């Protein structure tokens, strides 16, 4: 173990330069952030991830944000275990009818000010699951959405860009 730790010390870090915040996302966020009490969160956001019916592909890419290449926490972004500790809900999947209530409850348990990011093509409008007897539709059919990140699944860099756009808006507010 010592050797591994030592190597990590002498090697160049794998972590890559921060991507620029997504311009499109910044524009999309403009309106929603004007609505809320703007409050400095110290350039830090706590995120609660909610799988509302995903195929788990989106979860894989969200998990990848924690690896050494993206190192999400250096931006002051971190995943928390409870919606009560969260500023942001990052929701994936088409919302299934069996998850609708859990999503609503998670939203209601999240204190204001709060933002909802819908990640993945399914989260926009249900994707290829739209129209099923078991699916409500996209996330905005159940809770208000501030930002949508497209992709099936969106790659980690796209998710990171969206989160950074949100962070910029929030801390500039």
């Amino acid at each position, binding site marked *: *173990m010592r*050797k*591994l*730790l030592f190597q990590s010390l002498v090697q160049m870090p*794998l972590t890559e330069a921060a991507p620029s915040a997504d311009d499109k996302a910044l524009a999309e966020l403009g309106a929603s952030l004007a609505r809320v009490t703007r409050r400095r969160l110290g350039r830090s956001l706590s995120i609660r*991830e*909610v*799988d*509302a*019916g*995903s*195929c*788990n*592909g*989106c*979860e*894989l*890419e*969200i*998990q*990848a944000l*924690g*690896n*050494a*290449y993206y190192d999400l926490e250096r931006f002051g972004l971190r*995943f928390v*275990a*409870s*919606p009560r500790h969260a500023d942001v809900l990052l929701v994936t*999947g*088409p919302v*299934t*009818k*069996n*998850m*609708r*209530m*859990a999503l609503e409850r*998670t939203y209601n348990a999240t204190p204001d000010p709060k933002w909802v990011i819908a990640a993945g093509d399914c989260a926009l409008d249900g*994707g*290829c*699951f739209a*129209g*099923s*007897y*078991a*699916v409500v539709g996209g996330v905005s059919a159940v809770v208000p959405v501030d930002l949508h990140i497209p992709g*099936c*699944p969106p*790659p980690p860099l796209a998710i990171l860009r969206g989160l950074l756009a949100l962070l910029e808006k929030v801390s500039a507010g």
Partner: protein
Amino acid sequence: MAGIKTLIGKGTMAQNHRPWPRAVVTAETWAGAIAGLAAGQWNLLGLWGEPACVHMALLDATDGEIAVLSLDGASGRYPSVGLHHPPALRPERTIRDLFGLEPDGLPDPRSWLDHGNWDLRHPLATKPSSVPIEKTYAFLPAEGPGLHQIPVGPVHAGIIEPGHFRFTANGETVVRLEQRFGYVHKGIEGLMTGATIAAASRLAARTSGDSTVAYGLAFARAAESALQIDVPPRAIYLRALMAELERLANHLGDFGAICNDAAFALMLAHCGVLREKVLRIANDVFGHRLMRDRIQPGGVTGDISSDDFTTLRALVADIAARFPALVDLYDNTASLQDRTVSTGIVTTELVRQYAAGGFIGRASGRAFDARKNLPYAPYDSLAFDVPLLDAGDVNARVWIRIREIEQSLALVTQLLDRMPEGSIRSNLPAAGKACEGMALVEGFRGDILVWLSLHPDGTVARCHLRDPSWLQWPLLEAAIEGNIVADFPLCNKSFNCSYSGHDL
């Protein structure tokens, strides 16, 4: 002992079912099959419904023979398999939820995937009812001095899928775990009915995102069997290449995540880097990090260049150079071993009874890997071992993954060395007549079964997708018994079953 062919011999053979036979059988033969299942003679590969019919797929583990038995269910009832063979309980509850077919004698009257939220009942029946079922759900009672219950989920603390776990504990010790699933039920089989092959293939590849290659492959092979087409050799190799990269990425991720759940974050950091390398190269070579929708009935969507060969060989060399130090670290960290050794044991009897595949079966002494036991091209001509252990604990499930990572690295090299030249796609012929195909493909988690029935116009009449998790989830309930509550995340991660693949 008479084989599976004898069992179905008295039935009426379906004319266009490939590659294994399917027979419409009498209630008597159905009962005989149930007796064989209960006696451990057959493995239950799958049990699924149609509006007026139930099917079961059986495997004779001694000779690898497979057959599908179909029983008419026009009366709305059929003799329960679960009454005598517990692995059939959840599938039968599901068939009742979706089709309204009643398993006579099924000991569990509760719904499974239907939570009463669908605005209708029996959604896949010929005539669904507009009255949903009751939303109340009775968990099994557990009473006694000192017992308390801990409900967990559906929304969990990590970045994971939703499901509900109801623990009954005596102090720290779990006396019973009861699972409740269905939260991510999307109605995939319903969406597939009437869909084109292309649309159904997209849905199949979204059944469980972590196994998108394996599902794409299983669906494609079922469609190709039904339509009787051959896939060009190069496409077969490219498919296997993607399948092994998917296995590699998932096993690396699991290895790190299991150690992380034992509070050893260093392994997650290192494995996370290796996993990311695989995904990035998958993106460079195949154009998508998870290689989704790259496999299509008939072949694959894109070829690889000579540069890609170099990239892939460099990836194998890189991982092969870094991985052994992580294996040593796992092996030599006593505090980690302390958590994984003898935790969450699954017995050999149980994995045999449930025909549980993947690392769960192979860590508990069930030597089954679809690539070996029901070999499909190109695995029938490649050299690889199927690692087997019998301790059945978290540690054994970790070691199976470690050995499979090594095997997959070697397989990638073999696939590159022997990559045939030629085209990568065959055209799909028109179906012309009704036909059926079936496939079993070894995903990273275990064997995925796809059963596909096509209309003469080539659209899907019925498709059933059986995730390996169906046969594995129930064993987690057994594995955790007698362990402490705090070891549940570790056990659960060592199983890493799919919620979406199960809920569909």
